[in-house]
């Protein structure tokens, strides 16, 4: 499987990263080099193998469904690039 320029643009859109035309060509060859390298996995027989999603040798815990935090909106908003009162501000979404 080899990516063409259109595929690179589609992936960039999915990843929400703006790429210009000059970058597309470079990315295409770099991404194809990486995909070419990982292609070797197709040689491995994984019949009947359960996929391993994590490094932890244990089941994930659940915690009690209770509030453990809160009332720190100023702390949270302190890093906001833009705010309106107690809200994060973004460009207009609905006309």
């Amino acid at each position: 499987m080899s990516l063409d320029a259109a595929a690179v643009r589609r992936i960039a859109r999915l990843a929400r990263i703006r790429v210009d035309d000059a970058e597309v060509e470079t990315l295409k060859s770099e991404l194809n080099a990486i995909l070419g390298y990982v292609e070797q996995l197709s040689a491995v027989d994984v019949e009947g193998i359960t996929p391993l999603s994590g490094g932890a040798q244990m089941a994930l815990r659940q915690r009690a469904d209770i509030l453990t935090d809160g009332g720190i909106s100023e702390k949270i908003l302190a890093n906001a690039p833009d705010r309106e009162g107690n809200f994060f501000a973004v460009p207009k979404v609905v006309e």
Partner: protein
Amino acid sequence: MSLFDLTLAQASKALHLGEVTALELTTAYIKAVEELNPRLNAYITTTPDLALDQALEADMRLQNGTATALTGIPIAMKDLFCTAGVRTTAGSKILSPFVPPYESTVSGKLKAAGAVTLGKANLDEFAMGSSNITSAYGPVENPWKRTGSDAKLVPGGSSGGSATAVAARIALAATGTDTGGSIRQPASFTGIAGIKPTYGRCSRYGIVAFASSLDQAGPMARTVEDNALLLNVMAGFDDKDSTSANIAVPDFTAALNQGVKGKRIGIPKEYRLEGTNPEILALWDQGIAWLKDAGAEVVDISLPHTKYGLAVYYIVAPAEASSNLARYDGVRFGARVDGVDLIDMYERTRAAGFGTEVKRRIMIGTYVLSHGYYDAYYLKAQKVRALILRDFQQAFEQVDAILTPTAPSAAFGLGEKMDDPVTMYLNDVFTVPASLAGVPAMSVPAGLSSEGLPLGLQIIGNHFDEATVFAVSAAIEKAAGFTALPELRAK
């Protein structure tokens, strides 16, 4: 003997005996940072005022009997650990304005133990790299030089700033994080020791996430003993990390003098890769001989899926990264670039905020998780990952620890291995399998290359058996008697 010759353990003893105060030690290190950091670029942010306050408090604790082994010890904190009130960048432009309102668990534990923080150590952007050249805050210089050459070498990565800080003696120790080799490879490149503990041993809470199923914090220091003293404090269960292991933490220093008599050490034949530098193989053979001499039994083992480790890693890690880094959208924190609408703002923010390696990995991750490709890439990689884990599980039925080289080469020059991303990725060939299996692994300096550069050996242990890793590492360290020092260092 100068203050800078003291290891962490020796400095701790001197502090407790009152031979030196935390203020004197910290002041000396702050001065060394001021002198050497402009050249080495090991720190992105220095915090001398904070360090002096912490040193004064440490001296009080040393006097009133509440001091720990780390009280008054000046360390570097990898700039991936969120530190309350101190800027945390992850080596990325997108986090340049970010001042965390909270503290990571590991940095908090070190603070509570009385460690003094000199600053935030440089790293590859979002810990993605093996050379520290992807940092948005400039590359870090390795304090070591090839014999007769002044060429700048990389310190390895991603914990390159941490490694250089310790090696150049502008920190007594440092924190690192390791996703595919980011503690071990830079430790090998700079002639220091560093351990990636078992996945789940140290809390990931407050560490800027790269690949959550692989990320693990660990110490980097001059000696195996110093690492044990640090890990004693850094490890432990944390309710705030869903994958934190609720398993008792032993005193790791107890393992240091255990020796290797009667221990079975596995030598995996698959790590003898074709084309590996003969110097690296010779050092590995030397390590095997040292352990035999110390009474260990050496056993040939097979880890048959080793050769697929890197391919699995370069699917799994980017997949997780693409998901983790989706949070950098210019809305809640970090840098923003305005656009004509919301989507345009996202796309411009991320294009300007991320460097090329990070963008590449996000895009690969996005692709392998996308509709139609998920099974062929991501699911397949997860299955091969299961086989890699099984390899280790079977090996540890026969042996107590595994010995391998840490990296396929000594430190390379700034600008080398830049031809294509895959060449750079090959640096992690020996370290990635242990990361995928979640087992602990340590790099110990074991010798010098013909060019005078440090080389490390890697000791891999079974899940939650860091004690054996420390025991074997201490035996290698003792046999190697590595005393060489880098050219650039505080004296």
